[in-house]
């Protein structure tokens, strides 16, 4: 049951679900959730390959950097969401039509 392929399939499902979330949902926070899922799918792939294929820990380091970047991205993203809400009073993505007001 546990093999490289099973991890890849889990990661594939995560990626697809994240993509669907990004495409289908109109709430900006929900889109950020989708981005987190996609980043995690990538990180899982890195660690799985590092265990089964390369046998060194570079994959772990890469997934650590992915976690760091995801944290930074969500902090900035949520700051933008809050600022957007202050201006538009909504967090519907279709309302985001102007680069400046």
């Amino acid at each position, binding site marked *: 049951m546990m093999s490289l392929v099973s991890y890849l399939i889990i990661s*594939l499902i995560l990626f697809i*679900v994240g993509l669907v979330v990004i495409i289908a949902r109109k709430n900006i926070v929900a889109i950020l959730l989708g981005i987190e899922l996609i980043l995690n799918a990538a990180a899982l792939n890195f660690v799985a390959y590092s*265990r089964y294929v390369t046998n060194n820990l570079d994959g772990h380091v890469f*997934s*650590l950097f992915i976690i*760091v970047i995801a944290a930074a991205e969500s902090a900035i993203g*949520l*700051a933008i969401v809050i600022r957007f809400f202050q201006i538009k009073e909504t967090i519907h993505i279709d309302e985001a039509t102007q680069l400046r007001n």
Partner: protein
Amino acid sequence: MFIQLLFGLSALLTVGCAIAVAVTKNIMHSCVFLLGSLLGIAGLYATLGADFVAVTQIMVYVGGVVILMLFAVMLTGGKDFVSRAQNLLGLAPAMGNKWTFSVGLLVGLVVILTNVKLIMNIAKAYPAKVIGNDFPSTVSQIGHLLVKEHVLAFELSSVLLLGALVGAAIIARPRKQG
């Protein structure tokens, strides 16, 4: 045996919660399901012997990102939680007509077939091997890698984090209107 069990449960948690993130209408519930999914991924890391990455995952996501998300949901008002057309199925007709849907279906089919082909190749190249209970500690090795081979990325990520900190504080700062 135990690792198999952990793998099965974590995989179930990850995939189930990820799908729940997509189909739940309430954004607050979506955030909580994301928490479950991320915990499941930490479990998967543990089955891969990546103890440090697993714990970092829990630390950063549970302790930081998910709470931030919940805060953002709360600060952006409770009325908009079930906003217009958040339902996956209810949204479908608005996304296109029969042509776009058939093209999308075709593209999806091609992508899925490509992926199946790729995964079949990988399955042939790396047949399922039994992993014992030999999980050497990765902490010191990761430390060495971080300050030797990947030192540039390590330093840059600290700059990135500082930038994110300052940037988020400046962007979200309340300003005088007009």
